[in-house]
């Protein structure tokens, strides 16, 4: 009995962010808003003056915006995909982390798309993409699969939210109306639960291929041209791997912060970080494997046009970016993640931050050098982003954080009902499952 | 009302204003939808003559609603046959140059300060005539000096007539002589003072001594158009071009072979080649026997023996000597001489050099008989224009005329004027100072080597009046500006000739009404004469300059030669008739002639008479002279003068080579963005002045590509970007002309640097023009 209400005590902490708000929150909020305003100013300036205010020029037609696009879409693979995989794999430890993951996906997708739009010379003609869709264009493939992905993962985020929203509704706190509507009259009956479970696992199965497709087609934007070091068959898997890689990193960072700020040490335990750390380690190696094959094939192909770019990255103007990428994506995270001792929350945090930086650099190193070296000789043009591009980049990140914060203020960032369900049912379930695949257990 | 040039520009909306999208134009769509196809307003194509340089190309200006909207070549004009050079097309930007002078201007504030007050034409002309009357009253009309630049035709006669009537001997021709012009070499060998025609089209082998035919030949289109024909115009026959030059110019790039040579040594190379040709007996013995003088040793009337060309070069210019002067391998020299002698017809051309070096190049043509024959050097017939009628002068005028010219009458063997002596003398006051200076079509404060001397001279001249439509460096320095129409707005005649020697007369007519309050200088002169009255007025019995043109055109009509421009096959026909002694022009009356001229763009006489020796050889011997008797003194044979570098080689280790680009060949096109943007395409250079350095040299100096460097000569220094260019000789640095205007428009003022500020003032004893190519410089990081 008493250990029961003790538990209730515990879960209460999950409601705190929603119910109480400290001034630290408002402080960060205002800082973020400051940065966002700067970004907005920067963009309207660009909107009026044209893309001339960026560092772009012929032949380097794409720069930070496209880099960000690829980068953010990559991050978006954190949530939905991972949580889906874990769900289907019935990994019990997922219960307290899935939501924080799924939120990342839904939010960050907007910034991926946003960057593409901000990169347009004529954003006002955006709708032409629908009016005159030309489906041969990989951009169209992106548009489609990203839309699907966004809808799917929103639903996938929403479904598991319903029971918790219901909880909030019943705890007659503020915003009752909102919760009433969103709860869709959830009573928690057996039938509703069964339906929900079905729906969730259906979505889980659905989003995985969508997610994979998304980053594959993102890679196609490059791979479908005949530009040197873009026109590569492994770009699809390479990008997807990279995406999951950066995704997990992002998730770990998010979790770490939530854990600290909302004192959820009880829910986000070192073991979570350890497990995700192992996942990240796997991805690190996978990333290295892809990068290695990618560059090795180029090197052995030895086509001059490819090699100029190759050497530009290895020893030339882009060496700092390239080796920076290698440092952050591989050299730093690998050791940290390899040892249990360092696979602590802090350790994984450091590794993740490094991976995130590294992956941004990777995208940059894919986009810019190729464009810097067109096939025909061209006057030497050096691209460096202007303050406009930087502040818009900063704005995106701040805005993302802000939205994330707000979410935690509206909904529990850890799925309460799932955690409880875990406590109540899982023991039994797991025993059942183990019985199913191991001999000699369960004979009293 | 006083206002600075800036507000003045603003008044005219000078600041670039975004064009209202759409407006009269088809908006959005490209290509436009058929419905909107035919443009608003009627379109006219006006045939006239391009004024962007001296090429004299016929153009058709597309005029819609009174706006000139495009320029294409006039297909009937034999000079360019419907084609154009980049500058010609940019003529539109010369016409609509937003920084043009919009009305007569009177200086307010200090000289060169650039503060002006617009005044009416009446007042402007009044003011000038008062000045001139003053001078005459003082009995010093000779102190009126006209400095004239590059243009062709009757305007020159008009100026001289005006000066003669008024009473000044001082028309000073300030044209490109310091660059070295072909005249000098031709004069020494053929006694001719005019520029010859080079029959590129029919040559089989062209040996160019630093003549950048494709970069900026002084008649650009003549060379450009000829090149295509020379290379591929003749089925089964491909001409070979060899470019001898210290710098890999565009010409060098397009040539079949580029031979880098120590600057200033092509003279000796030419003689070395002559040596080999003679030694191997490859010269045209017949031609030399019949048409040349001074090849063999000879004895003059009073029994004095003279060394002939043959013996001289054989003894003086053996390949090994030539080789170590020029840095060109012996076997190359031998190969060149054989190629040149055996690929007939062959043509040697080199006018960027001092007289005797030009002569050295010239005699190569003599050796192979490339004189007055297809593919050789031709002396064109002149256009049979009427000379203006003679007139009587009053006593003041007479006295003034009899005064020595301010440049000391010392016209030298080459009958040249001497802008530099003019500058020096009007500074020193001997023989006298200039009181009033007219500037017509020339910009010495920018265009002349060592412009400072003119700056100084002008400081001493009380009144400077410019007729330029543009606020160029010198005009900026004037007291009064009477802006001329630009070429597309005025009447003018343009007599010239083709590479094959055919004389041509292009007619320049107004394509559109004047854009601003400008007036053709010709008309202004006639007005001035009228106001001055008396004999001066009588000397100008014409309403305007157009009448002057009509007057002298009668000469062509009466000469009963040639025909107005026609289609290719017509010409063939005309030619045939004329050969057969017939003359069957497409006009009967003068009116008809005049109308056709305006409609077709001009007149020409498509025949060249070979073998008219009295026309082509005006030397004492009436022959092609290897030994030039036209010169007094004891220098007669083409020889090589080692131009002793004026500055010590230690302190200034590099030879300065100044070159021109196709786009910005002269001083006048710098405010035309289309041309600024294509100036140095071999290095993607644009919108500035750059310095070409050999990469190895640069490495030695610790200079890398795009570094800002100082380039310093004993006479000045300029700062510019260094560009590493493999086509640079290790001990030479190249700088392009064209930019570095201290005044001009928004696209030229203070853009780039003017390399002429690096040059000294050593004058050539023969020509009294600054010697080029002897300046040395040092370079260091800025």
């Amino acid at each position, binding site marked *: 009995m008493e250990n029961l209400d003790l538990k209730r005590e515990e879960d209460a902490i999950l409601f705190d962010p929603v119910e109480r708000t400290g001034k630290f929150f408002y402080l960060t909020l205002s800082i973020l808003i400051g940065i966002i305003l700067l970004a907005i100013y920067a963009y309207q300036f660009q909107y009026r003056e044209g893309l*001339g205010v960026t560092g*772009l020029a012929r032949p380097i*037609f*794409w720069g930070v915006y496209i880099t960000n696009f690829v980068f953010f879409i990559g991050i978006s693979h954190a949530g939905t995909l991972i949580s889906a995989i874990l769900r289907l794999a019935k990994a019990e430890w997922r219960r307290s982390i899935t939501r924080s993951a799924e939120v990342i996906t839904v939010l960050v997708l907007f910034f991926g798309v946003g960057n593409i739009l901000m990169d347009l*010379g*004529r954003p006002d003609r955006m709708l032409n993409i629908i*009016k*005159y869709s*030309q489906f041969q264009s990989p*951009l*169209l493939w992106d*548009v489609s699969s990203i839309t699907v992905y966004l809808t799917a993962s929103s639903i996938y985020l929403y479904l598991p939210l319903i029971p918790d929203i219901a909880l909030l509704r019943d705890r007659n706190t503020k915003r009752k109306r909102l919760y009433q509507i969103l709860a869709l009259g959830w009573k928690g009956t057996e039938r509703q639960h069964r339906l929900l479970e079905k729906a969730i696992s259906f979505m889980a199965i659905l989003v995985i291929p969508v997610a994979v497709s998304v980053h594959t087609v993102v890679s196609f934007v490059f791979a479908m*041209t*005949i*530009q040197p070091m873009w026109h590569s068959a492994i770009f699809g898997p390479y990008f997807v791997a990279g995406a999951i890689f950066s995704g997990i990193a992002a998730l770990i960072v998010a979790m770490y912060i939530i854990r600290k700020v909302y004192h959820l040490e009880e829910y986000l335990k070192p073991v979570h970080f350890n497990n995700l750390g192992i996942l990240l380690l796997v991805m690190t190696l996978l990333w290295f494997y892809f990068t290695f094959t990618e560059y090795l094939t180029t090197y052995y192909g030895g086509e001059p046009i490819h090699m100029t770019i190759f050497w530009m990255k290895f020893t030339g103007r882009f060496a700092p970016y390239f080796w920076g990428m290698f440092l952050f994506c591989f050299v730093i995270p690998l050791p940290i993640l390899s040892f249990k001792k360092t696979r602590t929350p802090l350790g994984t945090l450091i590794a993740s931050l490094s991976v995130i930086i590294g992956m941004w650099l990777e995208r940059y190193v894919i986009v810019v050098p190729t464009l810097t070296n*067109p096939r*025909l000789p061209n006057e030497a*043009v050096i691209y460096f982003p202007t303050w406009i591009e930087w502040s818009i980049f900063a704005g995106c990140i701040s805005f993302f954080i802000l939205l994330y914060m707000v979410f935690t203020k509206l909904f529990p960032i850890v799925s309460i009902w799932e955690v409880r369900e875990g406590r109540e049912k899982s023991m039994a379930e797991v025993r059942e499952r183990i019985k199913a695949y191991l001999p000699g257990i369960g004979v009293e | 009302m006083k206002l600075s040039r800036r507000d003045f520009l603003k008044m005219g909306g*000078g*600041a670039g204003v975004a064009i209202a999208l759409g407006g*009269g*134009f*088809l*908006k959005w769509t*490209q*290509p*436009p939808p*058929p419905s909107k196809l035919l*443009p*608003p307003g009627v379109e006219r194509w006006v045939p006239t003559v391009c004024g962007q340089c001296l090429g004299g190309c016929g153009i058709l200006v597309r005029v819609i609603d009174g706006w*000139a*909207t*495009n320029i294409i070549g006039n297909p009937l004009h034999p000079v*360019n046959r419907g*084609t*154009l*050079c*980049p500058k010609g*097309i940019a003529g539109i930007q010369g016409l*609509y140059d*937003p920084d043009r002078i919009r009305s007569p201007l009177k200086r307010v504030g200090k000289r060169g300060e650039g503060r002006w007050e617009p005044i009416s034409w009446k007042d402007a002309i009044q003011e000038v005539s008062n000045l001139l009357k003053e001078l005459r009253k003082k009995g010093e009309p000779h102190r009126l000096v006209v400095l004239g630049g590059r243009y062709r035709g009757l305007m020159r006669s008009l100026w001289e007539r005006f000066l003669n009537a008024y009473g000044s001997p001082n028309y000073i021709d300030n044209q490109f002589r310091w660059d070295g012009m072909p005249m000098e070499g031709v004069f020494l060998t053929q006694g001719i003072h005019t520029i010859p025609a080079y029959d590129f089209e029919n040559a089989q082998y062209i040996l160019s001594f630093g003549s950048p035919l494709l970069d900026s030949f002084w008649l650009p289109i003549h*060379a*450009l*158009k000829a090149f*295509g024909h020379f*290379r*591929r115009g003749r089925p089964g026959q491909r001409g070979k071009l060899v470019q001898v030059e210290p710098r890999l110019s565009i010409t060098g*790039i*397009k040539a*079949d072979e580029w031979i880098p040579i120590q600057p200033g040594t092509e003279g000796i190379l030419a003689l070395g080649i002559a040596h080999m040709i003679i030694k191997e007996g490859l010269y045209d013995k017949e031609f030399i026997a019949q048409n040349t003088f001074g090849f063999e040793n000879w004895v003059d009337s009073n029994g004095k023996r003279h060394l002939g060309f043959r013996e001289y070069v054989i003894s003086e210019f053996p390949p090994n000597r030539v080789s170590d002067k020029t840095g060109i391998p012996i076997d190359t020299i031998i190969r060149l001489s054989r190629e040149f002698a055996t690929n007939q017809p062959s043509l040697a051309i080199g006018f960027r050099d001092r007289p005797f070096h030009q002569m050295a190049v010239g005699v190569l043509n003599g050796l192979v008989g490339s004189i007055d024959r297809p593919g050789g050097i031709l002396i064109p017939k002149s256009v049979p224009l009427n000379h203006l009628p003679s007139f009587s002068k009053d006593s003041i005028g007479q006295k003034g005329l009899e005064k020595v010219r301010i440049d000391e009458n010392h016209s030298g063997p080459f009958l040249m004027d001497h802008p530099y002596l003019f500058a020096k003398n009007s500074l020193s006051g001997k023989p006298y100072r200039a009181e009033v200076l007219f500037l017509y079509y020339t910009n010495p404060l920018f265009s002349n080597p060592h412009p400072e001397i003119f700056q100084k001279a002008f400081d001493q001249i009380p009144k400077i009046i410019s007729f330029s439509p543009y606020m160029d460096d010198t005009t900026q320095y004037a007291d009064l500006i009477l802006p001329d129409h630009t070429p597309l707005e005025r009447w003018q005649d343009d007599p010239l000739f083709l590479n094959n020697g055919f004389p041509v007369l292009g007619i320049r007519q107004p394509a559109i009404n004047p854009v601003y309050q400008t007036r053709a200088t010709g008309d202004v002169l006639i007005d001035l004469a009228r106001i001055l009255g008396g004999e001066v007025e009588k000397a100008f019995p014409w309403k305007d300059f157009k009448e002057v043109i009509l007057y002298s055109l009668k000469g062509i009509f009466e000469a009963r030669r040639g025909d107005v421009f026609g289609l290719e096959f017509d010409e063939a026909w005309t030619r045939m008739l004329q050969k057969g002694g017939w003359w069957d022009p497409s006009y009967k009356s003068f009116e008809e002639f005049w109308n056709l001229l305006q409609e077709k763009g001009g007149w020409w006489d498509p025949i060249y008479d070979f073998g008219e020796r009295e026309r082509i050889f005006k030397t004492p011997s009436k022959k092609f002279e290897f030994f030039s008797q036209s010169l007094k003194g004891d220098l007669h044979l083409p020889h090589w003068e080692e131009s002793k570098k004026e500055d010590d080689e230690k302190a200034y280790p590099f030879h300065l080579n100044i070159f021109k680009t196709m*786009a910005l060949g002269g001083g006048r096109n710098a405010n035309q963005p*289309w*041309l600024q*943007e294509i100036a140095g*395409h*071999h290095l993607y250079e*644009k*919108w500035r002045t750059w310095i070409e350095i050999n990469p190895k040299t640069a490495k030695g100096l610790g200079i890398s590509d795009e570094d800002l460097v100082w380039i310093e000569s004993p006479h000045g220094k300029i700062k510019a970007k260094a560009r590493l*260019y*493999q086509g640079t000789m290790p001990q030479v640095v190249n700088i392009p002309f064209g930019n570095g205007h201290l005044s001009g428009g928004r696209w030229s003022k203070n853009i780039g640097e003017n390399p002429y500020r690096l040059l000294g003032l050593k004058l050539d004893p023969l020509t009294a023009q600054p010697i080029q190519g002897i300046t040395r410089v040092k370079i260091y990081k800025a």
Partner: protein
Amino acid sequence: MHRWGMVIDLDKCTACQACVVACHAENNIALIGPEESMKGRTIHWIELIPYIEGEYPNIKARFIPRPCMHCDHPPCIKVCPVYATYLNEEGIVAQINYRCIGCRYCTTACPYTVKYFNWHQPRWPEEMKGSLNRDVSLRTKGVVEKCTFCHHRLLRAREKARIEGRDLLPEDYIPACVQACPSGAMFFGDLNDPFSTVSKLSRERRAFRLMEDLGTEPKVYYLSEGA
């Protein structure tokens, strides 16, 4: 059906750039001032590409005038999301500026880098605006533009021929650059007509195309330099 193509004889070409300026004048290409030019934002629908190889004094240098190749298999059009650039039935790769959203995908996809982007709003001084070519639209900031083979001239020629009630003759349709070329190095015409100058020249021994290995099937042919 016509298949328009161009032949450029590099042996005749003088690298004078009349073609470049002619194109500017004909097609209302924006004036990019000094500052922007230095950033590499000039627009040249046709451009002379310098190849300078080797070391002094053994240098191999060439110039190649490069308009749009009007490829028969243009990589640029496949990637355009809005049909703003397309291959028309006469083989001209056209550009619909009023539809272009300025994503610059085509510019990155074109292996010949012949597409240009308007980084700013094109501007002309008041004094010049009336001299713009009324047959060609003005582009706005944020759209891509490139050589159109002076397509508007074809339309005018057609119109003219129609009014005069006759068929289109080869000499009716000549792009501005070809018209200007002083050395007669450029040829233009119908590649489908086996007897046209261009198709004859395109079969010459010296004929080649840029990056033929990419399979883009350019319709601009070059005749190599030298004998």
